[in-house]
């Protein structure tokens, strides 16, 4: 560490502590360690990270970058290679074969661009055409238009899919999600691994027949409690999940849309009925998301979006594990849900996601799942949230045997009296 950094370190730490947690409900006034004017000046001076995410190779540098919210690009080996390379632009790499291949790709792209133009022209021509004079009528026209638009999207992707620079930019995480090619690549990457896992967990944990009749996820949802990312179906400590999570919802089709976020517990024990019920832990509606706007912190929901505020997950002692599923439901285009009406209608207990999706006509697009069990912090979490029942413990009910207990026979019967107590086994 350079002497300059050593000198600056305590100052930066002090500044970091200044940021008041967004989650805390109690307004805390921190003691200021510097004057107002100085603070602004120092912040501008040290806002840029000291390490370059493209070339950082040390563990310390990576950690400090990640702490500041920037992920290092690519593998460490790649970063080391970049550090020692001449940094020739990708297109000017001095390999003859590579340059020849680039030419071929360029010619192919030009051809695709031409195809795109003709397809656009065909679409505009058909749009101008009167549908009634076609053989199938207006319906046939709309069908053909839909097919042509689909083909146009495919052409747009095909024009860029072989471009090495686009591939590099996507792998570096610099892809612009407003462009179809990057959305396509991101979707393909998600479907290759992440989606398989979430679908597997949906089935393994029986979320699908229990909460919804069927569900095909089309958006990537990542649940994180502060710094802790949650893998699908993971057990989360109740102290970690006390504060509302932050969702990262990546949709892969264009346009902004409104979504509803619901968090449901599917395993609330009902002792009287000897069964389980569902409970809604969180409900917020009319939240805008788009391919480029992915962050969705549950704590930031506005007053006109929030229907049911966050209730921290809690599993009473002895009860089987609770599955908490955070569903992202897409509202149909132009549809906004009435918050006041929902506030009156939706109850926490005996919440049914099936009926909610049917009555509000919302489509589930993504889900994040985690589980919870009783742990050391649960009673504290329940106390702070004002939930009763922290002193309840669930125990297995004894099921009476079908056969009566057999009478003692033989040696045991003969030696049953107290006279034989010392020799009894």
């Amino acid at each position, binding site marked *: 560490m350079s002497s300059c950094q050593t000198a600056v370190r305590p100052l930066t730490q002090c500044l970091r502590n200044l940021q008041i947690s967004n989650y805390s409900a109690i307004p805390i006034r921190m003691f200021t360690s510097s004057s107002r004017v100085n603070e602004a000046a120092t912040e501008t001076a040290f806002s840029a990270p000291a390490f370059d995410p493209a070339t950082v190779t040390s563990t310390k540098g990576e950690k400090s970058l990640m702490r500041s919210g920037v992920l290092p690009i690519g593998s460490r080996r790649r970063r080391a290679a970049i550090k020692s390379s001449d940094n020739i632009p990708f297109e000017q790499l001095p390999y003859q074969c590579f340059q020849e291949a680039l030419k071929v790709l360029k010619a192919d792209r030009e051809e695709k661009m031409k195809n795109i133009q003709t397809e656009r022209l065909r679409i505009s021509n058909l749009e101008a055409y009167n549908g009634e004079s076609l053989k199938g009528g207006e319906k046939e026209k709309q069908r053909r238009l839909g097919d042509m638009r689909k083909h146009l999207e495919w052409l747009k992707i095909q024009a860029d899919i072989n471009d090495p620079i686009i591939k590099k930019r996507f792998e570096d995480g610099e892809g612009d999600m407003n462009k179809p090619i990057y959305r396509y690549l991101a979707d393909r990457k998600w479907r290759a691994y992440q989606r398989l896992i979430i679908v597997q967990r949906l089935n393994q944990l029986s979320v699908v027949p229990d909460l919804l009749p069927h569900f095909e996820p089309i958006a990537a949802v990542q649940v994180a409690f502060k710094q802790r990312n949650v893998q699908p179906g993971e057990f989360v400590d109740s102290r970690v999940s006390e504060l509302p999570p932050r969702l990262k919802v990546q949709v892969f089709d264009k346009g902004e849309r409104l979504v509803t976020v619901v968090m449901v517990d599917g395993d609330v024990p009902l002792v009287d009925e000897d*069964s389980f019920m569902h409970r809604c832990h969180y409900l917020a509606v009319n939240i805008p998301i788009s391919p480029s706007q992915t962050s969705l912190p549950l704590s930031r929901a506005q007053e006109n979006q929030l229907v049911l505020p966050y209730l921290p997950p809690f599993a009473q*002692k002895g009860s089987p594990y609770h599955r908490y599923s955070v569903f992202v439901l897409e509202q149909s285009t132009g549809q906004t849900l009435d918050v006041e009406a929902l506030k009156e209608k939706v109850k926490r207990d005996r919440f049914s996601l099936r009926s909610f999706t049917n009555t509000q006509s919302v489509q589930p697009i993504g889900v994040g799942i985690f589980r919870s069990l009783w742990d050391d912090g649960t009673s504290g979490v329940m106390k702070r949230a004002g939930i009763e029942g922290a*002193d309840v413990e669930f125990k297995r009910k004894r099921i009476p045997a079908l056969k009566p207990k057999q009478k003692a026979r033989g040696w045991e019967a003969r030696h049953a009296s107290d006279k034989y107590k010392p020799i009894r086994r």
Partner: protein
Amino acid sequence: MLLPRLQPPLRAAIKSIGRSGTSGTQTALNDAFAALSVKNAGPVLTFVRHASHQQQGAVNKAKDGPGKRLGAKKSGEQYVIPGNIIFRQRGSLWFPGENCAMGRDHTIYATQPGYVKYYKDPKTNPKRQYIGVTFERDQVLPLPPNSARRRRLGMEATKMELPEVVEEGAEIQLQEVTPVVRKRKVKERRGTEGMELTIRPGYMYREANWQIGRAAERAKVKVAPFVPRDRWTAWRKTTLRKTKNAEKRGLSRKKK
């Protein structure tokens, strides 16, 4: 043995030589040799019969062993409790369905109290037959597709037995009753004073490795510093060790 076998061909050869006396001796000889060849020596078959026992077919028919008491132990709609065996089988003739499980020897047993149902579920597997247990007698298996699972809690809520809560009021009460409770004194090991063990990865209550490394320091164990080339101390230590080992060996010999 060889001579009588050779006789007929030899005889024929001599005869042929006599017959071909008129023609040239060369051809006669050739014919004689041709007649001598083994080819003309007619087939000789020898049959050998070994002692044997039929290996295949009905001869070694399996003897009928004792019955293994397989089959259904509970019939359809019979009431069962968890652990009750419903079907004993070799191989998986029947598969475990709702609220049932399969044992090590493919035995189907109940995991919930209820009524036994034998059924097929062509949607999940067209070839398999299942045994399930339902909570209500009139319930039908398989469940309709995509319907929520029927689940039972099977538990009762009890008041948790909390360890004594430290409160001001409770403390006064405890002081009055304390003589009855005799607490076993837990002897603390040297160096573990005031140590709070927490659960660690691997579900172990133990210290971290770095803490274990500092144990001697915590217990204030003093070790005389090692002085290189101090042969006097080294010799003393060696002799001490050797005598100790010799004593040990002597003890073990006595035992034998």
